[in-house]
């Protein structure tokens, strides 16, 4: 891998739409950069803001939240809740002095593999442009959120 900055992205997907979109991107062999690592939730409504901060605190440079298009939620309307929480998280991040652009909300239906891939790619580029996020290295906010039992150093790759 090149010595240029490679961001680490955590992506939260909804079991019904965006996770299927990721599957579809796979079956269609649509390429995107390997920087993203996905976590499957049942619904974007399950996304507890703590997860996002936790991810950033633990070394993620950006977090992508994905769900069904408004009006297409498998659970009727829970993705709207995700939307509201997303706005909240952006404001909170700003409060922490972190670029809100480090989190992105993406709607992707089960049919939108290509869209999912391109959104991932563009988000990775955006975060790459923002540069690394050194949360936890030198600021106090993190301590509140990282009582991580595992230290990265423990695991030499």
């Amino acid at each position, binding site marked *: 891998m090149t010595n240029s900055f490679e961001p680490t992205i955590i992506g939260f997907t909804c079991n019904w739409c965006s996770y299927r979109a*990721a599957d579809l991107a796979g079956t269609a062999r649509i390429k995107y950069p390997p920087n993203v690592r996905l976590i499957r939730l049942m619904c974007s409504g*399950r996304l507890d803001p703590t997860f996002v901060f936790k991810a950033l605190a*633990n070394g993620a440079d950006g977090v992508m939240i994905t769900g069904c298009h408004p009006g297409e939620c*498998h*659970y009727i309307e*829970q993705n709207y809740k995700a939307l509201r929480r997303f706005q909240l998280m952006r404001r909170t991040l700003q409060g922490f002095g972190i670029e809100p652009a480090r989190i992105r909300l993406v709607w992707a*239906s089960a049919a939108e593999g290509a869209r999912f891939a391109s959104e991932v790619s563009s988000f990775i580029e955006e975060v790459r442009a923002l540069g690394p996020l050194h949360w936890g290295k030198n600021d106090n906010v993190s301590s509140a959120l990282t009582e991580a039992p595992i230290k990265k150093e423990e*695991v030499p790759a």
Partner: protein
Amino acid sequence: MTANLIENTSPADGRERIGVYVCHCGTNIAGVVDVVQVADWAAKQLKHRGVVIAREYKFMCSSLGQELIEKDIKELGLNRVIVAACSPHLHEKTFRTACANAGLNPFLCEMVSIREQVSWVHTDKAAATAKAKAMISGGVERVRHQVPLEPMTVPIDPTTLVVGGGIAGIQSALEIADAGFHVYLVEREPSIGGHMAQFDKTFPTLDCSACILTPKMFSVGSHPNITLLTWSEVEKVEGYVGNFTVTIRKKARKIDEELCTGCGICQEKCPKKVIDNVYEAGLGYRKAVYTPFPQAIPNRPVVDVDNCTYYEKGTCKACEIFCPTKAIVFDQQDKILNVKVGNIILATGYELFDARRMPNYGYGRLPNVFTSLEIERLTNAAGPTNGNIVLRDGKTTPKAVGIIHCVGSRDKNFNNYCSVICCMQSLKFAHIIHERTGATIYNFYIDIRAAFKDYDEFYQRVLEEGTLFVRGKVAEVSDVPRTESEKGKLIIQVEDTLVGKQRRIPVDMVVLSAGLEPRKDTREVAKTFGISCSVNGWFIEKHPKLDPIATMTEGIFIAGCAQGPKDIPASVAQGAAAAARVLSRIEQKQMALEPVRASVIEEKCSGCRICNGLCPFNAITFHEDRMVTEINPALCQGCGTCVAACPAGAITGTGFSNDQIMAQIEGLLMLNVDQEPVAA
């Protein structure tokens, strides 16, 4: 029905014994991810996270692969399993069953998708391998905090709802009803039969559509196990697999169906003629009180309130006056029915592409340009011309006819897919029109797609009959002559691509083989039933190859053209297949569900009620007396919104607990992309 936790193992107590199994999937994964290295790494580096064994194998999903896991569970006493392979949507069941066979709680098995999410989408082998490791480490952390779960079982209500009374829906309904279970068949139009009832002949055998369809329609109408609800629409669907509550609007027919004998006198006497845009495809007329066609099932008319003189002026009432059984009820109101069903089959069919969208073909501008559906009616002995194939003047028989394929299909400006039936349909028209009129027939095609049994043979036959085939997508149909011979004709301008020259072919009649489109309201319907649509607007099946019948929503199945363009045999097959799936469910009487449910830990609940407004399924109730919230697992669908919202962390979501996801985040981030050294 509950998701009872087995309390004896508290999550991540350091006593986890985890097995990691990395699948090559032939070269699908191994071609990009260094699986050997990954397994080796997991064994060494994740030891202290409880990994006792890590193996790679060509095909984990093969029986040998599964035995491998079962053996390790038994011999090494594994109590957690990670399978790094394809998407859980494909093989989760497989590996859970394997675990269960070895006596391990199936929910202690977790899949990591290193095919769909790694090897198929990445090319940089080093980076892909690194990502695979990170994802496995995430999986390991997550599974450590997983607790054994007992699958919830739900009883399956043996009654089934079939939506759509076309050939696919009819087939489904009959299969299930014949097996002795009750079916509600809901149809929007006044009669069942769908598009097939409008056709004259069916390819490739050319047997008469009505002759083969009407017996089926009749047995639906008379079947003791089928409640037929025509002129009705589904408005709301609540509940879940095995236990849906469906709200159906039975539109007022303005006819007392009990009293009506279907004698048809009302239609005779009704003075109001209306263009029949549905059954006669706009070519013929019907009355304001009508049954769409003679063999209609049920044989009960409908009063068309938008056109009936009585509703306009308050006078006329001819039908009421002449009805021998006094069955006309002008003030009849819509009825709302609530029915309980265990499974639902959607067979809502298709719509014809609106040929007006291609003005260069002249439909709507040039009278003698017809659509395929119009020709079906025109050739049908029961049609507006009694089967006489004539121009729109109603008398002239065409001497030359041009049939244009792929109208609105295989065209990025309209529908970028092949509508499947148009080639065969066009060949059928070529045969019928030639047979009845002796006219010279041209077929303009891009490619002849005559796949499937006896189809190409039919193509051969039509060739024999002297049909002239021109390979080229027609550019335009014009009424502007350039030569004497073109005067008074429709001129089809096309490049004969096999000759490499532009040709202008004068004909009397043009037939547009218009493509198939999803119904306008498909997306609303999908929303009502909680399923989704493809980019082109067809219902999405659970798996394009292995499960083209189920949907991602348990208990909802799809059949016929609603899932994608297909011909009659395919629709019938899919209708029957959907029925078979439902029957097996019914026979099992109950089914296991993902025990993914939320539950409240009462002692932690502060009674703040923040969660109370969040549940769209009304699963959350607040107990004023104890000042605590409770979640009804029967109603809970497991979305987890309330779990995320609870400020006290008093709500836990099984299978997706905070601990699990927090742990997975940590696991995923133990290795940074750029910290990963390039693999040798």
